[in-house]
């Protein structure tokens, strides 16, 4: 069982994942589907990512001293700054700042936001279990995995907003259909590269079922399975019904997206546990 700092690290990492993935995903979805009124959504989640990134860095300082004084200890924080943890923080601060700046510069500024988002996501390559492997293919796999997941997360809230007003049912149906087409490529990529990384990190079926890390990964995959079920229902039932003019489909789609959000929170939470608290099988 983790101590108080271990629990705080998990919660902070969850907030970091939520902040970065949602803000970057919303920028990607806004560019791809030309959503309106997403600035506050992007800024809110990017702000959450910034705060969580600084808190996560500071908490690592506490981990080094074993007490709360480490969170502000210049020697500990200076020491951390010289390691890949410092590089990751720098990328997150620069990336998320660019992302926020871009949303104030009109439509073209979204490309600056996208660049910033890519920098912020690139920070996850610097530290963690994949970084320890030092393999280019795994880095590319993680980047693709995160970008595909971010797009999925980013499309949900604007799509639910469109599905919540009768005036925008047609737009919701159109976006839902176009996202379904995009997802038919990105979701298999998400799953294939996820499986590839899982295979490299866990290594064997025995380790998958016999270690905490493997069991955590199984729980995450079960959650993702639930997400795929909901996504299939959206693509095969609710979106076609909405396109055919069935108003009840909008309500079903909206509810389905709310449940998707809950499962995504569970997936991000499980990922935070996997990356903070569990040792890789050896």
């Amino acid at each position, binding site marked *: 069982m983790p101590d108080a700092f271990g629990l705080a690290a998990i919660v902070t990492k969850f907030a970091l994942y939520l902040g970065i993935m949602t803000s970057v995903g919303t920028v990607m979805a806004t560019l791809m589907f030309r959503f309106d009124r997403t600035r506050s959504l992007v800024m809110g989640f990017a702000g959450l990512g910034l705060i969580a990134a600084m808190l996560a860095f500071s908490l690592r300082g506490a981990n080094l001293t074993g007490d709360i004084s480490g969170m502000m200890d210049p020697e500990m924080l200076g020491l951390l700054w010289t390691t890949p943890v410092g590089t990751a923080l720098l990328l997150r601060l620069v990336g998320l700042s660019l992302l926020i700046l871009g949303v104030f510069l009109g439509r073209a500024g979204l490309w600056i936001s996208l660049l910033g988002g890519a920098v912020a996501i690139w920070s996850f390559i610097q530290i963690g279990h994949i970084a320890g492997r030092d393999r280019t293919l795994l880095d590319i796999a993680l980047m693709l995995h995160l970008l595909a997941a971010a797009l999925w997360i980013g499309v949900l809230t604007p799509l639910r907003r469109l599905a919540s007003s009768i005036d925008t049912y047609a737009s919701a149906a159109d976006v839902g259909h176009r996202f379904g087409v995009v997802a038919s490529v990105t979701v298999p990529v998400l799953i294939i590269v996820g499986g590839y990384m899982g295979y490299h990190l866990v290594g064997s079926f025995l380790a998958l079922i016999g270690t905490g890390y493997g*069991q955590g990964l199984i729980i995450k995959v079960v959650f993702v399975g639930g997400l795929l079920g909901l996504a299939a229902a959206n693509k095969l039932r609710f979106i076609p019904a909405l396109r055919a003019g069935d108003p009840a489909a909008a309500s079903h789609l909206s509810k389905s997206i709310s449940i998707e959000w809950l499962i995504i929170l569970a997936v991000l939470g499980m990922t935070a546990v996997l990356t903070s608290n569990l040792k890789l099988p050896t």
Partner: protein
Amino acid sequence: MKTLLLAGVIGIWATAVMAHSPLEKTIPANEATITQMPTEVLMDFKGDIRLTKVSITHADTHSMDMDLGEQTSFAQEFSLPMQDMGAGVYVVEWRGLGADGHALNGTFSFTVE
């Protein structure tokens, strides 16, 4: 569903470790019983680490932080002077930073008869 999730998470934590523990060996060895108090403890790690905190607890009562003033670089081996606090169990708790930025920690103990 909630109970199932909770059971799963508790099960995972039960088999989890808080941080990586890369200690190769110590002198005195973990759980060793020795007749004479050593003048120093040796900690040998699998890779380079910068020690950030080492504390020693004697017989569950007296605890003190060791002075790491001279340990200001990443290294694999550390030799720390020990203070004789008499017979009993000595528990050494250490914390450090791996060169890859991972926080590391661990504990070992030995008994002086």
